[in-house]
């Protein structure tokens, strides 16, 4: 932790530093290079900006990401050279090194806590800070190694590769981009430019994302927090209110990050993939996972589930593959048993959904899916099992149904806000749908933008980090 007085500039998307200083500077420099025809300099510019963005959190992390990029680039060249006569184990070794790095930073303390009785006395718990975005850039590079081995992509030049990994719009929390989607865009610096149409679309996506984060998600976080933090034996209303508030918070928060990342990409001339598609409108859990954190689900499907399901040694291939895939998803999210349980719970949901043969009426299917997700989110949010169990019991009414007036309890005002935002999540068009139905009047469109962006800007205050930064 930095000492008191280290007032570093931490470049969060939802900060003035980023919106009114860092971003205009980068876009201005990019436009100047474009106007001067110095396209080749755009890659170093964006790479430098990305490293400044990342290093603003803690410059020591630059060493880590630099080492990770260098190792994976070298290993990818090796895999590319071996394509004619691939050596068994080369890919596995590369993946193992990546996972070992991730495990060291993310799971050492967790393993220490759980294995403490078996360890020699006197060992102190290691204090290892989790580097920002390590889960995301590790996953993206593992996928790259696999794609190089499978001839899905070629190894680009080192600066392009380094930019592919560190590209600041999606470095910290995705979307997790496949090499064949992003590298061709970055490798053609003439594309890395913006025009009025891209600026309008990009700023629109950023405004929507910013509004979702600072107005909606942060407000919902304030509603969920007290119940998750210190409401022991919450009532039915409080438990459900907090569970719903967090379920909505994480959606608005994470999808906001994706909206902003996509918007930033547009400003730079890069198209990033969509990461959310109104997930709470899903009719079943499989559909939910096709709409939620899409790039992560796709990664799991392509690089974990399919290889496992096809593996000849697995008898009940699909069932095993589902459970293993979601267990991995849980572990990837965090070093805690609650995340393991959350992953397994989703694996079980998927198994049940896969084997369920009787179609359900649509409203019931929607409701069941949403409730299942919300129950899972309690595990995702709670600091430990006992808190999760306490809140889930509250949701069953085990701690009473009566309305309470405790500190942080959900009063009518909070419940109205939660249910209004639930209605928005379920019924309102998402950002992508809005973009397909643009306002024709420039004046109205500009006014709507100014209101959304302006309200978001004055709500920023002290910026709160995105929930997924902790992963």
């Amino acid at each position, binding site marked *: 932790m930095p000492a008191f007085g280290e007032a570093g500039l931490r470049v969060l998307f939802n900060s003035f530093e980023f919106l009114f200083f860092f971003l205009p500077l980068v876009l201005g420099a990019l436009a100047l290079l474009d106007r001067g025809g110095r396209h080749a300099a755009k890659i170093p510019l964006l790479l430098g900006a990305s490293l400044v963005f990342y290093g603003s959190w803690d410059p020591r992390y630059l060493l880590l990401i630099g080492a990770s990029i260098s190792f994976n680039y070298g290993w990818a060249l090796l895999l590319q050279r071996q394509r004619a006569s691939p050596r068994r184990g080369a890919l596995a070794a590369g993946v193992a090194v990546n996972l070992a790095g991730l495990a060291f930073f993310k799971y050492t303390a967790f393993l220490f806590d759980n294995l403490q009785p078996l360890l020699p006395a006197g060992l102190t718990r290691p204090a290892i800070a989790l580097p920002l975005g390590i889960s995301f850039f590790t996953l993206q590079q593992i996928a790259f190694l696999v794609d190089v081995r499978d001839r899905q992509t070629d190894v680009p030049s080192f600066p392009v590769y380094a930019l592919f990994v560190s590209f600041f719009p999606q470095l910290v929390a995705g979307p997790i981009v496949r090499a064949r989607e992003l590298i061709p865009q970055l490798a053609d610096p003439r594309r890395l430019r913006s025009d009025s149409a891209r600026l309008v679309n990009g700023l629109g996506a950023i405004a929507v994302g910013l509004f979702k984060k600072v107005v909606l998600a942060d407000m919902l976080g304030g509603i969920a927090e007290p119940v998750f933090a210190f409401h022991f034996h919450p009532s039915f209303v409080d438990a459900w209110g907090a569970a719903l508030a967090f379920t909505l918070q994480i959606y608005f928060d994470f999808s906001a990050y994706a909206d902003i990342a996509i918007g930033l990409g547009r400003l730079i001339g890069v198209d990033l993939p969509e990461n959310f598609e109104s997930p709470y409108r899903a009719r079943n859990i499989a559909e939910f996972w096709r709409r939620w954190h899409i790039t992560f689900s796709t990664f799991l499907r392509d690089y974990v589930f399919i290889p496992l399901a096809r593996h000849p040694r697995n008898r009940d291939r699909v069932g095993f593959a589902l459970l293993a895939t979601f267990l991995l998803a849980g572990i990837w999210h965090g070093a805690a048993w609650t995340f393991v349980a959350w992953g397994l719970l989703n694996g079980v949901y998927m198994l049940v959904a896969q084997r369920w043969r009787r179609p359900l009426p649509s409203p019931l299917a929607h409701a069941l899916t949403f409730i299942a997700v919300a129950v899972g989110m309690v595990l995702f949010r709670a600091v430990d099992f006992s808190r999760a169990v306490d809140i889930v019991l509250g949701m069953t009414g085990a701690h009473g149904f009566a309305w309470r*007036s405790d500190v942080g309890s959900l009063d009518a005002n909070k419940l109205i806000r939660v249910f209004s935002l639930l209605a928005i999540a379920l019924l309102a068009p998402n950002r992508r749908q809005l973009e397909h139905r643009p306002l024709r009047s420039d004046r109205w469109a500009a006014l709507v933008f100014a209101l959304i962006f302006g309200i978001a800007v004055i709500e920023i*205050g002290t910026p709160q980090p995105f929930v997924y930064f902790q992963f």
Partner: protein
Amino acid sequence: MNAARRLKLMSIYTAVLLAAVAAVNWSIDPLGIWGNGDRPDETLARELVPYAVALDRPETLLVGNSRIAWSMNVGASAGVLNAGLPGATLDEIGALVDRALENPALRRIVLGADAPLFRPGHSGLNDRYRALPRRLHLDPLVLVPETLLNERILDRSRRVFTQRWSAAAKDSPGETGLWSPDHIRAEIGELLDHPRTTSNPLRRQAHERMARGAYTGFGDSDERLATYAAIIERAEAHGVEVIVLLPVQGALELDAMEEEGVWSEVQALYRKLALIHPFRDASGYSFLAFEPRLFIDPLHVWPVVGQVLLRSLLGRGCAGCGDVAARIAELPVAVDADNVEARLAEREQRRALARAAAGDARRRARLGAPSASDG
């Protein structure tokens, strides 16, 4: 769609909207800190207090943690600035003092110093972005989003405007700065007749946890003591008088100290503090500790108590404030290196009396007899 035109309009409309917000905030209450004695909440206070320290030119500066922030609420006027920072650390207090010393009008500092400030691991509510130095130096990248272009400040501006409007209509401006004796007497009477102390069990539990946490394994730190001594030294080197106050403690906090078995450690800290610099002591066992009606919550007294203590510290007296106020005004006893042992003995005596009384009350309760306070 004409993209170029739309982009231009987007920029213009956004700029107009943000300029309007900034103009409203600037014209009513530029930084949200000159309101009518209306303290902002914890988070907002931590954001706004440093700006007030950087910009205001008070003669008297109050620094400390929430015990100062909430319990000596004088607003930001009449030559006194309350720069209490909820969850403050000594490092933060030092930074506030250093900035305030740049104010040539500053004559004295009242420093609220409670025992938990001196714990080695005390990290207070030091915010995620360590923004205090940036705020103290009016860094526009934090100042603008936290003040001029800020929805919460806009809301404060609205309230300040409404307050001023209604005050103007009634021709009775709200009282800020040091309260008048009449106001103090009336406020104490109101609190004693109609207690507003929170009875919420959850909040009480939270405060119990907080109090226990503050004293679990309590011990002071040489480093913290050195920081404290250096703050006083720097202030005095600028010719500024430093009045240290050990704030009032409530029964719950005293219970936490007893249950954690750290009374002697706190006494030892008391001795060390006296050797560093004289102080005024309102802490420990006193009649006030057992008067919950004068507490906002188990850890903080109502501002009226702080007002009386402040008058006492500043030598203003409180004639006409009433009997209870007179007893409060007598609380902060002067402690220095010469009389510290005698004061420690007095504290022990008061503790013994209080514990005997508590034991007596418990025995009476067991026997079903009325307690002394029932009458």
